[in-house]
């Protein structure tokens, strides 16, 4: 039922804050035509519409969950601003023939911590092997930016302390797998 529902702007923000992923699908349906028109008018093709729209919606999802977020314009205007930014970046990349992995440049701001010497594929593999609870918990915390209360509600934990300790356990387990996989001297430049 929810899949067919159209949310108002304030409802969308509420649903995203509550971690309702159906809100993403609703946005995709509502704004597809608008994004399509923009991409096609700006040297894009049909194949590129979905990708840009989906990346933009995910960016909205993350931004809404940031602590001091407040929507001061219409959601469509806000989304289009992100779409335009992403699209112009993509066009730039196209003309320069360079490929940059945006995923590695998202939330973490500590640029002075270099991890290039680590084999990220191994870490991706270990993360992928995590059990579903840990995977969801760490994703909610680090990617979605949900607070511990929201995570407790979504995952059925008793309280925020349970979230904290469970998150630490998950991370510790992952960290110990990573350290045993790597030879210790890899970590020094």
């Amino acid at each position, binding site marked *: 039922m929810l899949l067919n529902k159209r949310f108002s702007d304030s409802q969308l923000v509420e649903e995203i804050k509550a971690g309702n992923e159906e809100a993403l*699908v609703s946005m995709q*349906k509502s704004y597809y035509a608008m994004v399509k028109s923009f991409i096609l008018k700006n040297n894009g093709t049909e194949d590129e519409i979905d990708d840009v729209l989906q990346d933009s919606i995910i960016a909205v999802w993350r931004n809404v969950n940031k602590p001091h977020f407040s929507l001061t314009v219409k959601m469509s205007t806000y989304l289009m601003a992100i779409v335009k930014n992403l699209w112009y970046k993509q066009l730039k990349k196209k003309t320069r023939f360079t490929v940059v992995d945006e995923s590695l440049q*998202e939330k973490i701001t500590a640029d002075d911590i270099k991890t290039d010497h680590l084999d990220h594929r*191994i870490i*991706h593999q270990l*993360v992928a092997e995590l059990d579903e609870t840990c995977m969801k918990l760490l994703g909610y915390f680090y990617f979605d930016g949900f607070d511990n209360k929201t995570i407790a509600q979504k995952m059925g934990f008793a309280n925020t302390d349970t979230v904290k300790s469970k998150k630490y356990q998950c991370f510790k387990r992952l960290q110990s797998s990573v350290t045993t996989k790597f030879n210790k001297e890899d970590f020094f430049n």
Partner: protein
Amino acid sequence: MDKQQHIHELIDQYLMGELVGQELDKFKIRLKDDPAFLNQVQIQKAIINSVEIARRDELKAILVDATKPKKGFIIPFGNRSLAVAASILSLLAFGLIIKTMLPQGGEELSQADKTEQTIIKEPIENQKPVSDSAQVVATLDDENQDSLFIPPSPEIALADVVEDDETMDDASILTAESDDVDFAELKKNEDEIDGDEFKAQRDSMLGSKNVVLLAVAYETQASEATTSQEVKTAKKDGLFNRKSKEKSDKKTEVAESAPQKTLKTSPSIGIRVEFWESIVKFKGYKFDGKKLLLFDTPVSTQIGLKSYGNTTFLNKGGTWYKIVPNNSFNQMVRVSNTEILKVLNAK
């Protein structure tokens, strides 16, 4: 909260740019002075990056799935009665089409067939063409029932029921009782439909995870060619290369003349594995090269993926299966070749 957990949270705050003031200064000093601490921060950062990528892929998969056409169908009627009436009218139309396609008159039926028909009375002499569906319903009578010689099915039985009564309108269709059709049962099923829409039952996804496909290959190495220069290069390489190079370095001392074949495993691409429950109890898989759908496999099952040569293999609960990326529904084919099993089980 123990000390390690406190440090973990402090690193989290630093990586997210939430550490300020004196705490930040202290943190930076410790990063410079304590290599083990720097090491811990680096690992934490790399892990968080990987978690973020995995979650982003998961959300994207939800959006991608939403753009795909649905497997089931939704009858576009807000009103249940309208939906049922439309179904019956469709069946009527179907019956009419069948009727017009079949040979007219009972004379073309064999005598044996005729005797099996309980409703046949006598052949029609002068069959009149019909102009519209309303007329068809009105003109159908016991005499031309014999031309409706089609295998018995619930649909046809329904059509027959309606055709039996010349004056039946939509309301009476819905309330009519017959020996052939249990309308009470039909009504009961209709009552079970909840809400404004009728949704067909469909397969449901129970969970998903991302699994890295490991590429397994034999690598030929000429041991005497492993010069000290190559060993130096090897030290600059990542973890995977180092271990194999170290092995070959040791072999240099033995100075074997024949080339050595070593089995090498390296991660290639990430595969999204989805666990589905099939309404028809299908037990198998569907694989398009990037996404693997497993049917009737519990989410908790240990899953591994390896490729060897041009073939992909799935390890499901300790057993290896060959999987084909043809994007079709396939049955699981167990690997029985001992040579392949040896390669797949090699660490």
